[in-house]
């Protein structure tokens, strides 16, 4: 029910092709559901460029203007760094659109597939979904 409410202002998308595996230090499927793709639009409130995987947080407004803070997980900082991303590639206040997969435990958490800035530039472009299958 809660999920449904939040998803009111969110474009939900169909099955997304598997991301290029970057690396999960554990099984992706023990945390995320690859059959539950989600698209979120909002404003970055916090970035944790930390191990084992980066997390950042986004305020997402639904149709009735209610704001929910979502956690978004990405790849390992060293992997992102070697792919050209930096600690300030994503900043607090940035407007972003995230394509990703929902957490299985029902929390407001998603694993990113892509993060797109307002100007259309894609940042990070790597999930932690380096699952074995």
């Amino acid at each position, binding site marked *: 029910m809660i999920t449904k409410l939040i998803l009111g202002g969110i474009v939900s998308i169909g099955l997304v092709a598997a991301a290029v595996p970057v690396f999960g*230090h554990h*099984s992706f499927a*023990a*945390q995320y559901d690859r059959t539950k793709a989600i698209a979120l639009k909002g404003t970055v409130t916090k970035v944790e460029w930390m*191990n*084992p995987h980066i997390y950042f947080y986004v305020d997402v407004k639904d149709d009735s203007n209610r704001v929910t803070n979502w956690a978004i997980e990405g790849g390992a900082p*060293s992997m992102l760094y070697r792919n050209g991303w930096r600690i300030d590639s994503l900043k607090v206040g940035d407007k972003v659109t995230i394509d990703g997969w929902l957490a299985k*435990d029902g929390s407001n958490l998603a694993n990113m597939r892509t993060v797109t800035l307002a100007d259309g530039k894609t940042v990070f472009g790597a999930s932690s979904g*380096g699952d074995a299958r």
Partner: protein
Amino acid sequence: MRVLVSVVAALALAISSSAQNTSKPPSLAGSWRVPYTPNLADALGQQPPYTAHGAERWRTVDTAKDPTGTCLPPGPSRVLTSPFPFIIVQQENMIALLFEYQTIWRAIYMDGRKHPADIADYPDFMGHSIGRWEGDTLVVDTVAINERTWLDTAGHEHSPKLHLTERFRKVGEDKIEWTATFDDPVFFARPWSITRTFTRFDDSKDQDRILPYTCTENNRDVQHLVPNQPNLNYKYQPENR
């Protein structure tokens, strides 16, 4: 004539083996990148040759229980199939492997010592390793690998009886061929091996330097893990031998 050929051949062999004994082993020193291999069965081309016990463990494994999910060390072979670079420091009496992943290390004793007699009572997540040169191949023998480690992300497990033999061989200035042989009579009906190739990693460039990986820094994942048993339909087929 035949005798002469034999004598010459024997002499040639003696000379070459004595040259081998006195020649310096190749240098494996430097930084290396490894191909990510989250499922060893993919590298093997099939599931490992399980015992009935090993097969049942594979069938029922819950990947939410992956020890690295709680930042426990990955184990001596899994760390070499994880997609992070590592450094080899080579000295005559010791070869050290220093890993970006989890900021962890392995010491390979090259001074001729044996595994300590009581090592099985004191297992290490990264095992206890002794090494020797066989020609130009570094052969590393590792035991006492904490059974809580997994062999890969897919969930291949092992027992305390796992005996890991690794062979590191330079196959060009910038390549090392690595073969890992897993011998564990509790989980596997016979030893089996995978081979991977490490390529040189130029960490002299700023963007390619070894970077931080302290797993417990912000391991938020752990509170979101849910049971996940992907292999419940696996059917055990013992090998006909």
